[in-house]
């Protein structure tokens, strides 16, 4: 009854083409933004903001980046963490060496560097497909990490290879507390998510999807293969690069190349798969699930050992966590291979008819 678009007539082209065509969706998004920007920083505590919600947003951005490449353009990549590493370390270098350009341009430049790396390692996609390409993107993962560890310029000749992200400030406003860092992250993620949502209904986005569904057919109807595939790699790596810069500046604080291992790439791929391939909302749902689930498991095991008086050793807990995590991934893939976003879609369909299904 509440969620029904009946009676919402479009009387101009602008109305017909808005991003969220249903009024209830617009209200929901507006409310969500108000909650995220006002209510959460007011009532969230420091631990939640700094250790859970901020990384969730950052991972959601990275997952969105991978989703553009894998979900929309259909090119499987296992090098996400490498693009994040490029973003993080280039942002560090831009802020360090060109302090006068400000933090936003530095992040954008870092993202562009990641995009350039993405284009270079996206070149094989013109020739190879599927798992061959996925394994080939591993080359990017290993090479970038190696380069960051071996070329001292990237870490400003730090002897340990660890760099400390500088204090960031915008127009004299320093982002120093978890609340402020959260707000900065949220603003960046919100803007980029909106851009992604918009991109996917443009000509470029439709070209991506045509390539995903069948690239030979897409080429036949005149979609330039090289431009589309490389653009997908570039945009995806840009998103991942900015996510990496945020990861360094608003979450970790101190970064080393080892923070961006293959494990991180896989985690982000999990977010995309569990959230929903080819869905902006899915990236957020998947990121929320993967960030919150280990915390939940930890709490559950702590609660179990507390209430039953069992003394479970730390090694057993971490191994059990690993098993449950793996098992849950398999379970999810079997039960809902289209991810959490699909569940939301089903819920919406149901909501349309509710409470009078006939």
């Amino acid at each position, binding site marked *: 009854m509440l969620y029904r678009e009946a009676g919402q007539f479009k009387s101009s082209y602008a109305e017909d083409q808005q991003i969220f065509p249903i009024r209830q969706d617009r209200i929901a998004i507006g409310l969500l933004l108000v909650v995220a920007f006002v209510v959460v920083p007011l009532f969230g505590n420091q631990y939640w903001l700094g250790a859970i919600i901020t990384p969730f947003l950052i991972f959601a951005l990275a997952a969105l980046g991978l989703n553009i490449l*894998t979900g929309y353009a259909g090119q*499987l990549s296992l090098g996400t963490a490498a693009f994040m590493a490029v973003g993080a370390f280039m942002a560090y270098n831009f802020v360090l060496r060109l302090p006068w350009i400000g933090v936003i341009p530095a992040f954008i430049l870092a993202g562009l560097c990641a995009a350039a790396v993405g284009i270079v390692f996206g070149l*094989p996609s013109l*020739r*190879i*497909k*599927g*798992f*061959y390409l*996925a*394994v*080939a993107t*591993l*080359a990017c993962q*290993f*090479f970038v*990490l*190696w380069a960051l*560890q*071996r070329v001292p310029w990237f870490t400003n000749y730090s002897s340990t290879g660890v760099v400390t992200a500088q204090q960031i400030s915008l127009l004299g406003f320093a982002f120093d507390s978890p609340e402020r860092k959260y707000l900065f992250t949220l603003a960046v993620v919100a803007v980029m998510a909106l851009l992604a949502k918009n991109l996917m209904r443009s000509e470029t986005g439709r070209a991506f999807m045509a390539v995903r569904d*069948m*690239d*030979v*057919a897409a080429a*036949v109807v005149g979609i330039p293969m090289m431009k589309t595939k490389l653009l997908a790699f570039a945009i995806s790596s840009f998103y991942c690069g900015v996510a990496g810069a945020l990861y360094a500046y608003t979450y970790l604080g101190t970064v080393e190349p080892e923070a961006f291992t*293959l494990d991180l790439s*896989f985690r982000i*791929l*999990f977010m995309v*798969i569990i959230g929903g*391939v080819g869905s902006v909302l899915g990236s957020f749902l998947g990121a929320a699930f993967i960030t919150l689930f280990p915390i939940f498991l930890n709490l559950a095991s702590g609660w179990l050992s507390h209430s039953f008086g069992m003394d479970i050793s730390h*090694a*057993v807990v971490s*191994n*059990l*966590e*690993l*098993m449950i*995590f*793996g*098992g*849950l*991934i*398999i379970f999810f*893939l*079997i039960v809902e*291979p289209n991810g959490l976003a699909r569940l939301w879609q089903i819920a919406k369909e149901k909501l349309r008819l509710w409470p009078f299904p006939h």
Partner: protein
Amino acid sequence: MPIEVIFFIEVLVGGLLAGVMYSLVALGFVLIYKASGVFNFAQGAMVFFAALTFVSLLEMQWNFWLALLVTLAVMVVLGLVTERVVLRPLTNQPPITLFMATIGLAFVLEGLSQLIWGSQPHGLDLGIADVPIEWLSQRWNVNISQFDIFAACIAGLLVAVLAVFFQKTRIGRALRAVADDHQAALAVGIPLQHIWAIVWAVAGFVALVAGLIWGVRNGVQFALTFVALKALPVLLIGGFESIPGAIIGGLIIGATEKVAEVYFGPMVGGGIESWFAYVVALLFLLVRPEGLFGEKHIDRV
């Protein structure tokens, strides 16, 4: 012979033999990909699981052959369970979903093996010492480990057995039929699910062999799971569907990697073995997108 030439031969042969060890792991990938189109990321975890089970049984004072037999049985059961629990419900899903499921399976296996057997590293001794062959080092001053030769023989034997199994036996023919076309195979009455169970069981056996060989070389420890990452470039070069390709690819990767590490590595600060094989494979793919022996796919609209 001049010392440089001897050194080069030593490096080259060492690389070729190391490559054979990569192929051992790559074989497991090929088997499963060939028969079911699943890119099985859990192969590394299977290698680790098999080696850890075997070495733990040995340390419980079990007889060598009994331990081997029990581990083999465990791997076969693991293959059957995987087919029943993971693969069967996921039939007809896109390959990426199956791939993700095998990553989940890898996590389960890693957790399970360490939960049962603990996470401390073990040494493994098969009775063949990892020392240079004496008469070679005396006669020509070339140092080649006898264990490497042993591993190469095992790999060669394994490939020969698998080749015969695939070419000559009834089950092997059924496997090839399934690999060619699932639907056509079903239509002529080949039970798809039995075939998959057999393939996973055979892959478990290959994982056991690879785990034993690698366990002797590096010790049985968690790092064994990363061996799978070493095998991936081998697959790229050899092609995902070819058993001989896995061997040839392993030789190419092993040799180029070792030679590059020795002659080119010091120029850029070392540590290039983490990515060099991938870049070689990548360059190779630009020329041959399906690898050396992979099946050419013709796209139809």
